[in-house]
């Protein structure tokens, strides 16, 4: 019976199941630095997923995901700075995600409501990163300028009596794990729905799908807003985890790092992109410590090769190998 159920789960869902089970059980076996840092990479994984739903599913390349991440992170930072009576935890997270989503909604509406050429859109998202970065640098009073803002670990309150502090590694780990899992399932559900299928239609042949009566501007604007929301959510939690937010979170180079993660992980696969975010970001960090002069070059070359040869990234490679042997 269990085997029958297992057989019916698609390959991609199997992979997702394995990855989440592994991540969920990891703290039982390991402790130390990995448990401390992995939540950050999970959030990068969510950021990668936010690009995947645009690029892989809808055919929209965005060079501006860092902007939304930064908006989320800075919202958390500012809420924290505001202090006072309110617990910044929920406010920071919810406002970070919402603000980022609303900015994305407005920008998306502006860009998609008229048929602009793709180069214009790329440029606009590029400009978005630059604008957010410059704003972060220049509005010293609000954002701390070049120096950024410090953020503590938040404490969640569940009901009137329970306090769940994220100060220690394990509680933070499971909190982020939980959010990542929830978000991933939600996005997967969304992409498997009618909405997701229409986005694929838009990617495949926008002229055809609009001649079938679909308002493509509407769909693109909504998915862009969802992408912004997700990236902002990840950014807001990141702010509390890292303890520090600064303008480098918004820079164009970070936006393009996200593109590299998704390209390597697999742009057409949600779990591939998530894994890409986690693996490539951690690989970059590792390489940075091992060979600080050459690591970006190595990543750049991998990116090159992935675009040319392994267009479906890791996810595609895993799928092919799996099909070969099973």
């Amino acid at each position, binding site marked *: 019976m269990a085997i029958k159920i297992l057989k019916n789960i698609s390959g991609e869902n199997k992979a997702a199941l394995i990855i989440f089970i592994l991540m969920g059980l990891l703290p039982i076996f390991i402790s130390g630095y990995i448990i401390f840092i992995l939540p950050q990479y999970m959030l990068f994984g969510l950021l990668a997923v936010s690009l995947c739903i645009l690029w892989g599913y809808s055919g929209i390349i965005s060079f501006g995901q860092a902007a939304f991440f930064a908006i989320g992170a800075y919202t958390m930072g500012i809420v924290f700075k505001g202090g006072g009576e309110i617990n910044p935890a929920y406010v920071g997270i919810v406002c970070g995600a919402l603000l980022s989503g609303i900015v994305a909604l407005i920008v998306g509406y502006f860009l998609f409501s008229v048929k602009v050429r793709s180069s214009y859109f790329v440029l606009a998202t*590029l400009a978005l990163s630059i604008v957010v970065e410059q704003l972060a640098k*220049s509005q010293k009073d609000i954002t701390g300028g070049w120096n950024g803002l410090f953020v503590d670990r938040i404490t969640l309150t569940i009901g009137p009596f329970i306090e769940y502090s994220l100060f220690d590694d394990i509680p933070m780990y499971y909190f982020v794990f939980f959010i990542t899992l929830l978000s991933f399932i939600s996005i997967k559900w969304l992409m498997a729905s009618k909405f997701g299928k229409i986005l694929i239609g838009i990617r495949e042949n926008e002229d055809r799908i609009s001649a079938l009566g679909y308002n493509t501007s509407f769909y693109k604007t909504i998915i862009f807003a969802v992408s912004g929301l997700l990236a902002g959510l990840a950014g807001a939690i990141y702010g509390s985890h890292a303890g520090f937010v600064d303008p480098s979170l918004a820079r164009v180079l970070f936006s393009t790092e996200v593109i590299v993660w998704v390209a390597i992980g697999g742009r057409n696969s949600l779990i591939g992109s998530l894994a890409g975010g986690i693996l490539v970001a951690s690989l970059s960090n590792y390489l940075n410590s091992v060979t600080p002069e050459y690591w970006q070059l190595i990543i750049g070359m991998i*990116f090159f090769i992935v675009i040319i040869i392994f267009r479906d990234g890791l996810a595609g490679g895993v799928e092919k190998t799996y099909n070969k042997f099973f």
Partner: protein
Amino acid sequence: MEIVVSVLIDTALITLTLALAAFGLAIIYGLIGVINMGHGAMLTLGAYFTWAGMGIGIPFVFSVILGGLIVGFIGIILEHLIIRHYYDNPFDTLLLTWAFFLVTTELIKIFFGPDFRTVTNPFPGFIDIGFYKIPTYRTAISILTAIFIIFTGFVFFKTTTGIKIRAMIQNQEVASLLGLNISLTYKMVFGFGCFMAGVAGGLVAPMVSVSPYMGDMYLVRSFFVVIVGGIGQILSGTLAGSFVIGGLETIVALFSDQVIAQVAVFLFAIIILRLRPQGIFSEK
């Protein structure tokens, strides 16, 4: 009166400098439809080669030309090995040229080191016209840019080579029937665009500090210049776009700082483009 003249001169200098930087991008995007995200890196390369050339005693002008030629050659290799397989997919060429930017910038950091370099100004000082001091070097390259644009216009519209290239853009099938080697032409155009980027990098080097990321700002501004000016319009579009972007930046910078000015101009340009997506001069 004098203020007007000095503002006009400033505007002209800024316009032409921007036009110089954007020209390579405009050529490649306008003629063969490739968004060269590596344009900034090619500019940077040109600057570094110029610096290196001068370091071994080659005079400034020759260093610039040599640098441009090397960058142009690199461009041709890139086109031949990779880009030419992806002409029908603009997103891929975008990502590939971006990958080129990533790899090249890292290689620059490795070979030349991440520190700032300086290229000494070959024409330091000012031209004193009484009420205003015009920087000599800026004037020199502005005049050079103007000459170059006129020269390119001449080649493009009056010579057989230019006519052939324009024919190819309009209708590839017919052009190849007329004996035009399409792939060779594409290579030449791509190489020329990269050459111009390299030359531009070398020429702006004395005015800024040479560093691995110096070309980045030029990438985004060049992009704006080309789209605002109108993509197919390589000459008039580039000049018009440079005028708008450069002029706006200068005006806004009068009221706030340079960085905010750039951002404000970006936002303004995005809004304008939304209202008139084809740019100032429409595509053919």
